[in-house]
């Protein structure tokens, strides 16, 4: 895991800020469904409720909260020369109004780097141009999940989500998403 290999960086002054940021973010799920977003109520380990087989309380011992992992230094996703060339091509196609071919070109790039959030954001923007805010939103959330550790990419993901919400008239949620993007931008 990435935090295992956290190299010593110039993280001293930012460290506390990062922790605070993450703590606020930890509460807000990027996902709207299902309603019972996973939070971690104290005592999650000895739940109560109806059922035929109750989860067993652990043997008595001091229960301590699992701490937040030390933050890895922020990373920054980049495009490889191959995907960069495809993104350029997609931009040219989109510029000429050829959105479907642009999307097909971005899918080529995604097959090469499926875990690069920047490509999902690009594809989400094409979906916005195609007037498909639902898919733009979903791509933004996919990008966000992949962008962990890269505040820039996270901010871009939130901006895409914000735009997709605004198009659908969900202005309050859009403003919230923009706020998250803003907070992340200052972090990097």
């Amino acid at each position, binding site marked *: 895991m990435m935090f295992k290999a956290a190299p010593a960086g110039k993280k001293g002054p930012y460290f506390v800020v990062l922790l605070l940021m993450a703590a606020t*973010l930890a509460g807000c799920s990027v996902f709207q469904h299902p309603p019972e977003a996973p939070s971690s109520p104290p005592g999650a380990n000895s739940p109560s409720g109806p059922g035929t087989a109750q*989860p067993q309380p652990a043997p008595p011992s001091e229960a301590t909260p699992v701490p937040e992992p030390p933050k890895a230094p922020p990373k920054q996703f980049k495009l490889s020369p191959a995907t960069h060339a495809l993104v350029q091509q997609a931009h040219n196609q989109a510029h000429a109004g050829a959105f479907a071919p642009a999307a097909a070109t971005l899918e080529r790039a995604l097959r090469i780097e499926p875990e690069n959030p920047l490509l999902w954001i690009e594809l989400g923007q094409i979906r916005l141009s195609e007037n498909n805010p639902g898919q733009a939103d*979903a791509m933004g959330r996919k990008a966000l999940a992949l962008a962990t550790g890269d505040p820039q990419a996270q901010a871009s993901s939130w901006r895409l989500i914000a735009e997709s919400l605004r198009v659908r008239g969900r202005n309050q949620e859009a403003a919230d998403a923009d706020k998250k993007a803003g907070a992340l931008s200052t972090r990097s």
Partner: protein
Amino acid sequence: MARSGSKKFRRIFWLGALAVVLGLGVAATFYILYLDHLVTRQFEGRRWTLPAQVYAAPLELYAGLALSGGDLEHELQRLQYRRVERLEHPGSYRVQGSRIDVALRAARFADEESRPAAILSVVSTDKGIESIRDSDGKDLPIVRLEPLLIGSIFPIHGEDRIVVTPQEVPTLLPQALATVEDRKFYSHHGVDPTAIMRALWQNMRAGQIEQGGSTLTQQLVKSYFLDPRRTLGRKVREAIMAISLDAHFSKQDLMNAYINEIFLGQDGDRAIHGFGLASQFYFGKPLSELDLSEVALLVAVVRGPTYYDPRRHPDRVRARRDMVLKLMAERGIVKQADALAAEKKPLGVTARAAGAYFPAYLDFVRRTLRRDYHEQDLTEAGLRIYTSLEPRAQEQAEKALERELARLDKQKKYPDSKLEGAVVVTSPQSGDVIAIVGSRNVGYDGFNRALDARRAMGSLVKPFIYLTAFETGRYNAATVVQDAPVAIKLANGTVWRPENFTRQTYGPVPVVHALAESLNLATVGVGMDVGLPKITETLGRFGLEHLPAQVPAMLLGTIEVTPMEVAQLYNGLANGGFRTPLRAVRAVISAEGKALKAFPLEVTPVATPEVVFEVDRMMEQVMEKGTGRAAKAVLPANLVVAGKSGTSSDYHDNWFAGFSGSHLAVVWVGYDDNLPTGFTGSSGALPIWARLMAGLGTTSWEAPMPESLAETWIDYSSGLRVDKSCSDPNTVPIAVPVGTELPMKPGCGGNSLQSIVERAGEWIRDLLH
């Protein structure tokens, strides 16, 4: 009187005769006009009657791709590129140390109508591709090889063809055809009376029909109307039609129609028509790339595709090919020396027919398209269909299934029944289905188990039960649950008492342990606590279309699903909680090059990245410590994968479903008649899955952990938290929400104060670095 009477009679007779002749003439004229109409309509119509061509995914080449020089050569050979010393024409390559120069063919893609032929230099080491340059030495960021033609969708009556334009035909072919089949083709008017007389004379001498005097035009007509009778009436009809065609169309049009029309072989229920397809069928490469000996071989086959079948009767066809070459040299079409050199060449026919290799995959493509297209559009409109099939993955899947089932045959319970299997492989993030195997007889177009075998999913349902439990916020991977006897009163009054596979009970265990060891009783307990409606709803969200009845037995996987449905469900787990409709078809392009339909990538969030990560992390432990651990012996040492085994009650079906960073594979093994196999998912399907994954050259599962989760280590048996530094083999890593309170295991690393001090120490060390 008598004289004038006979005169009168004679006049009447002649008038009558004239009327009859005129009448016959009018009738004959109408008949000829009718035949003329019939044959010209057929000729015009045929130009556009072409089955849809189906293509695999093209291989993308770029610096950094893990493709060695040897792998690249293998991929080029799959596309029938020839290794040469000097690059001459497209479809060849040469190897110069670590550099491979490729004369790339022109190609068409789903999103690019015509990519011209070009020369590339690819430098590749064992690690992969280092650079790709064009003929001017300019770096190319990305280039793709042309997509492999994997088959076509031909009509029920079985005529398959690839239509070629005159520019795609080697000039030798029409010359050879005219020389061998119809010497006066360019001068006669559709029929050749001298040839008919010659044939008659020879046939009379031989006492049987040895030679036909048909011109190419007559053969063309014969092929259009497929009438096997050898009657005089039919011959006359054919002759009239041939003259009619000759009058309407140029010799070049007729020659080209002939080249695209004529029957050249049989492949099961598929009839190979035209030289374009015959070239692919016998040599696996485009017609334009055939050399003299190959052209001569196809011309030899024209006379009798069954009698001169190059795969069944190589000696016969060889003798006739050499005769064709001699004739060509005699008539001065080729040099004597070239003909002699060509005679020395082997037949060069591929072992298996190219195309139609992957019947289960093509079946899936056909079903996808039938939703949007009429049968006739697919078989006649000349569509080009671009799919996601990856030939390399498909080969690995076939090989893994064939080999491991052969091994299992030796241990099976029912020697008379044939153990069967199915495999589906996807790229989880794109939802591309890259390989499908529907039977251990991989080349057989029969019952497609990947799509149609609906079997109990067994323990494959468990990850979705725990995922639903995590969503309630009341469970996590370390939650201790009771694996103890359960008795559930059913609606019909009976009592359901499920058992573990081993018929033992395991007492209190953490959830990660219950999943990894696939404990039934613990899972039923959690499932009943969470509630059947919620679990059913989760399965629906992940893409299960036929939702099961909400009976407690569903918790142990009585739900019947196909391997493809399992792939859809698990794809959501492999894709971080995003559902992506699995797709085989990327695009459909019309004969004129217009994009008709695209199947764009779609994602839908169906669970939070957090709960999916927690479950996936537990599925990693299935492979490390649980029922999937045997795969470790086969997989590369550091490859991280996650998966789950499944065995339905009484061993009827066994499953394994799992994923790496770049691939998801689902394997089913069982009997068609639903006999118990005697194997579990771990002993039956797992070895196939492991061999397949090892062969794919896949990447580790390393999804980023959501920021609201933390990794922690617990004791596998008790669920108590332990310090990572505790070198106890019984500890496992899990992901839980930050702040989850977990009791510490006394003893090793149990002192939390101590661990805080240690952490602080580490932090200070980091700062000082």
